[in-house]
């Protein structure tokens, strides 16, 4: 009967929906919300599955989005482990009381500045802020000794930055924490006066510098190595500042265990796994990041954590991203 058909279809759909719902329930596998992409952490999580026999399901997304999802789920979480791109995001989730403390021995593998003081999250891999420059257009000797030098008018029209990018904002936050609000403001105004070209992300900057579209840009160290591997880095090279300059901030990707998980033991085991020597070597060699466990060697050509004395900044304080967004907004940069 033609008239019945839509009714039958609707009832079938409803039945399927209920059936599907009944099947989903609370899962038996470990659920990870990852703000780092599959390219970066997928192979590691797979190795964890193979070694421990624990099934892992991963939801990939932007760091802020998955952190936002953990916050919105509130006390009815679906995630067991949260992995994010930088300390700021996970700091906000920790502040909202959505993470449980990790075990001391695990935390202590990592230098104190790369983990939460309350032990709510721990860094996994580091990245340094650097200035990428075009070797044909800028001789290394012309580069200033600190990032302050880029406020000089001779850099007018030659710089690139990505003010909407999380890493850039974390660097500004570090600047504010280290040198104070006024200094950060002065630096931003100085660079802004040089009309930097704005890019949506770091790799676009490295590519543009490699092609000579701009002379220098503020980025994370590893994009250069990744683009080089794809043959797209052109004449780009990294300048690492070191000597405690905010320009050499080392930020970390981080992990935490979500409060309310019924798989806390497995969740903690995963965080520990990500800090074992083999995983740390993976970060060094495959993603060109800096291992946060000091006993593990860095990758070829990648600056080592010991070679660049990073500024003494408490990454946990980098959770004041709101202040940074407000500052950038007030200055008309965002």
């Amino acid at each position, binding site marked *: 009967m*033609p*008239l019945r058909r*839509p009714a039958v279809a609707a009832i079938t759909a409803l039945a399927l*929906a209920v059936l*599907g*719902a*009944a099947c*989903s*329930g609370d*899962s038996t596998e470990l*659920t990870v919300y990852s703000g780092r*992409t*599959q*390219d*970066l952490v997928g192979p590691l999580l797979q190795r964890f599955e193979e070694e421990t026999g624990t099934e892992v*399901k*991963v*939801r*990939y*997304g*932007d760091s*802020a*989005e*998955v*952190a*936002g*999802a953990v*916050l*919105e*789920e*509130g006390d*009815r*979480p*679906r995630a067991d482990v949260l992995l994010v791109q930088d300390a700021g*995001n996970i700091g*906000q*989730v920790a502040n909202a009381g959505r993470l449980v403390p990790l075990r001391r021995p695990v935390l202590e593998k990592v230098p104190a500045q790369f983990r939460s003081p309350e032990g709510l999250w721990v860094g996994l891999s580091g990245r340094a802020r650097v200035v990428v420059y075009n070797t044909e257009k800028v001789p290394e000797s012309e580069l200033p000794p600190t990032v302050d030098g880029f406020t000089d008018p001779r850099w007018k029209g030659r710089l690139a930055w990505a003010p*909407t990018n*999380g890493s850039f*904002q974390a660097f500004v936050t570090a600047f504010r924490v280290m040198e104070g609000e006024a200094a950060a403001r002065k630096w931003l105004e100085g660079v802004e006066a040089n009309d930097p070209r*704005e*890019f*949506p*992300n*770091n*790799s*676009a900057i490295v*590519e543009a510098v490699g*092609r000579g*579209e701009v002379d220098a840009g503020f980025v994370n160290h590893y*994009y250069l190595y*990744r*683009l080089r591997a*794809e043959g797209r880095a052109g004449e780009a090279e990294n300048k690492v500042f070191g000597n405690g300059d905010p320009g050499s901030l080392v930020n970390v990707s981080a992990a935490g265990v979500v409060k309310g998980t019924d798989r806390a033991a497995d969740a903690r085991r995963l965080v520990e796994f990500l800090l074992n020597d083999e995983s740390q070597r993976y970060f060094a060699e495959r993603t060109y990041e800096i291992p946060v466990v000091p006993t593990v060697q860095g990758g070829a050509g990648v600056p080592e954590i010991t070679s660049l004395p990073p500024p003494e900044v408490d990454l946990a304080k980098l959770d004041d*991203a*709101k202040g*940074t*967004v407000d500052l950038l*907004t007030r200055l008309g940069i*965002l």
Partner: protein
Amino acid sequence: MAIPVRPGHLEDDLGVPPAGDEPPPSPLGRRRPRRRGRAAPLTVLAAVAVAALAVLPLVYLTIRASEVGVAEAADLAFTDRTLRLLLRSLGLAAAVTATAIAIGVPVGWLTARAELPGRRTLTVLTALPLAVPSYVAALAVIATFGPRGTIARWLGPLGVEELPELYGFPGAWLALSLSTFPYVTLTVRGALRRLDPALEEMSRSLGAGAWATFRRVTLPQLGPAVAAGGLLVALYTLADFGAVSLLRYDTFTRVIYVQYRGSLDRSSAAVLALVLAAVSLAVVTGEGRIRSRARQGSARSARLARPVPLGRWRLPAAAGLTLLVLAALAVPVATLVTWLVVGSREGVDLGATVRAAAHSAQAATGGALLAVLAAWPVALLADRHPGPLARWSERAAYAGYAVPGLVVALSLVFFGARVARPLYQTVWMLVFAYLVLFLPQGVGALRTTLGQVSPRLEEASRSLGVGRLRTAWRVLLPLVRPGAVAAFALVFLTAMKELPAALLLGPTGWDTLATRVWASTSEGFFARAAPAALLLMAVSSVPLAFLALRGDESTSHGRDRRRAGSRGAAGGADLRRGLRRRDLAPVSPLRPPPGSRPAGSATPSP
């Protein structure tokens, strides 16, 4: 049994005189019939339920926004900067909408009405830009028109040192115009195919030229369709983030994203998103005003117009369409193919990509079906029983479309984890998200078509004792089918490329083509994104091809027309067929004895 029907006379034969309170129809059509008859309770109930679901994101935003004090919220919402960015957003939306209409109307007319070489192919190709995610469109525009792009390289040897600045307004305008004009093309095409060609023929027979006829007869009748398509374009532009961020044009949406991405400041972002929603509501209301003033075609017959020979304009028209296809489709595809060539060195995980394609198609199909189903009562109420309830349920339907996708996705995480826990993170949740996000596309397309179907056909059916549901199923649905198919295709296409909901609401570990494209491009590995992006466009072209080919000669109307042996009134044929089958049987006690014909039934004198 085929009863020959004189074109266009069926309704008169059904003996339904124009209602007394209506002005007599003008030769160019009439004002929209304002029927105040009571709507079916089921329709009202369904429309209210749909509206309630559609405003969930606004409920969530209000909850979040109320976490900041009124004073602080006002501080956030009413600053110079907010105002400036709003104006920028509105300016961009106006420019993109105007361009989309300027492109979409002629393209819609050409593909629907003109004798063009390769018309069907061009129909599909001019609609396909909808399948290009706006961030891919933006990257393609940069790769082509950018300072180091293809065109700059071609022009370099000719002494052209610098192209006009692309970044900022020009680039955002170009990328968005090229990826949204098919919203107008598709709705205009649908409307054209439902217009009564008799009016145009009359105009021509009275001596008006083709152009004058188009301008004075056809165009005024397209008003509602153009307004509906333009509204989709305007709201899409207001809520877009991908293109404006890549092309560095600061809009209101970008500010909302900055609040989320930078500082996870959900309350401030909610205040700003509510401002955007309010502005969008104003745009929706404005569109309603335009539409209610527009003349509506009488659409007594749905017979197809004869293709218009273009004469010496044939080649320029075909060339123009080809150029458009090149700019809006070939450029992104060429960019993707370049990436594919670069990326294929690393190998392509074909299995995973195909699996993701199946996921995408599954979610988009479900979302499109549900959106069309849910749009039906809203569109029916809005068109047949205008009034405050109809107006507000239609406006509510636009709520999810008017705010950035991330906001909608997070709001459904909020409700999903709390209220709909068994559905949360299943395909059903994602399908539901697509309903909330893309309902307006369904409402717009259905409503435009409904407006062209004379209510008298339903009244005739009802007067013959056929129940409401059966009338809807047998009479209205076949007549509105082209609109429903168009609505399905629109939602399907948009859902295929949708990102934030796919990331946050689908089953964990269930990737779609859009999430695969995102995963690669977000880290700057564009080459790896190419296979998924190309497959995304290929899968999207399937319903489009279906739509374009079905919409042409092989429609059910076409079949009926052939069966009737004349250029018969397809609408009448549908009504007749609907009523003929298992006729009127169990419906009414007033049913006439078998064999006799009820008074006023479809027995036209040949």
